[in-house]
């Protein structure tokens, strides 16, 4: 009886998989839009990075707080962007990356650098806006920033934080 129920359940899942493997129509215009877009000049890359050595006083403070986003921009970048430092204290980590919707959640784009006391830091340029971000520890563990509000709209299920950066005059 139980085995039969289990088999029925598995059959249902196999039917679902079969359905999901059906081709989905994708508009061929996507090809043209891609080719048209790559023919345009790429938007400017973020600028204004500074060396970690300059931020050690901030890192000492960050070590106390756990993790912190320094809200004061260091220097203006292009397109109204300012440089912001993200810091995480993770003494046991072998690697940490900053991932967020500003870098497509791509760990390779903002690897963090280890400083003293298990403090990891990186600097990114961000124009004014609202961003979700998280730290990827050892390539597998997602951590929200304990010093920032949790993102409420994180449908994906992984913990993430949110930061809002105002304009220069705000």
């Amino acid at each position: 009886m139980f085995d039969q129920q289990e088999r029925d359940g598995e059959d249902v899942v196999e039917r679902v998989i079969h359905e999901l493997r059906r081709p989905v129509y994708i508009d061929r215009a996507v090809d043209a839009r891609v080719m048209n877009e790559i023919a345009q000049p790429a938007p400017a890359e973020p600028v204004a990075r500074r060396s970690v050595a300059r931020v050690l006083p901030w890192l000492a403070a960050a070590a106390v707080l756990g993790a912190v986003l320094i809200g004061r921009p260091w220097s203006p970048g292009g397109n109204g962007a300012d440089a912001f430092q993200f810091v995480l204290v993770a003494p046991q980590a072998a690697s940490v990356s900053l991932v967020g919707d500003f870098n497509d959640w791509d760990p390779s784009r903002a690897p963090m650098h280890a400083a003293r006391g298990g403090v990891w830091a990186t600097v990114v340029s961000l124009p004014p806006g609202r961003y979700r971000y998280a730290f990827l520890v050892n390539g597998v563990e997602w951590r929200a920033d304990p010093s920032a509000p949790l993102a409420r709209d994180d449908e994906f299920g992984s913990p993430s934080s949110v930061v809002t950066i105002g304009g220069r005059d705000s």
Partner: protein
Amino acid sequence: MGIERVEEGDAELVLRIRGGDVGAYSMLVARYRDRLGRYAVRMIGNREDAEEALQDAFVRAYRSLARCDNPARFGAWLYGILVNRCRTTGARTARRRRWIVHDEGALNGASHPDHGERVEWADIVGRALAKLTPECREAFLLKHVEDLEYEEIAELTGAGISALKMRVKRAREHLQRILKEAEHV
């Protein structure tokens, strides 16, 4: 004997593009459009946002092509970019999600007597999939629909293999439960 069309591999095309042959990228787009598009539609739940995510992934991949360490594995690398785009898009569009009911297969079968049942089943499946957590949906689709190995999925998602196996298991259990409930409605 005769003339055979020899398809260039991903690595050759990537090298041509890096060498300045921008047009060669259209071959990679055509090669991966449908498969990656299916993943995006299943993951995000509506075609419009899925096509936008797909387009964005292709453009980002092109602009980051210098970072593709292994051109022969361009497809896997591109998959990783799309998975990230779908995560971002999925979170952004969660509140206005509408699930695809009709796909090309269903439309092509419009004159078939079973057409109504197929469309209904596709709708049920889409809604059941939407009830999974995004993590479970992602793992389930990559494992069972895209047929990737756990090692490949781990590489794409940054998640550990044991966590992925658990997500797939949960997805299967949830789908069984949801569809059983649907049968009794």
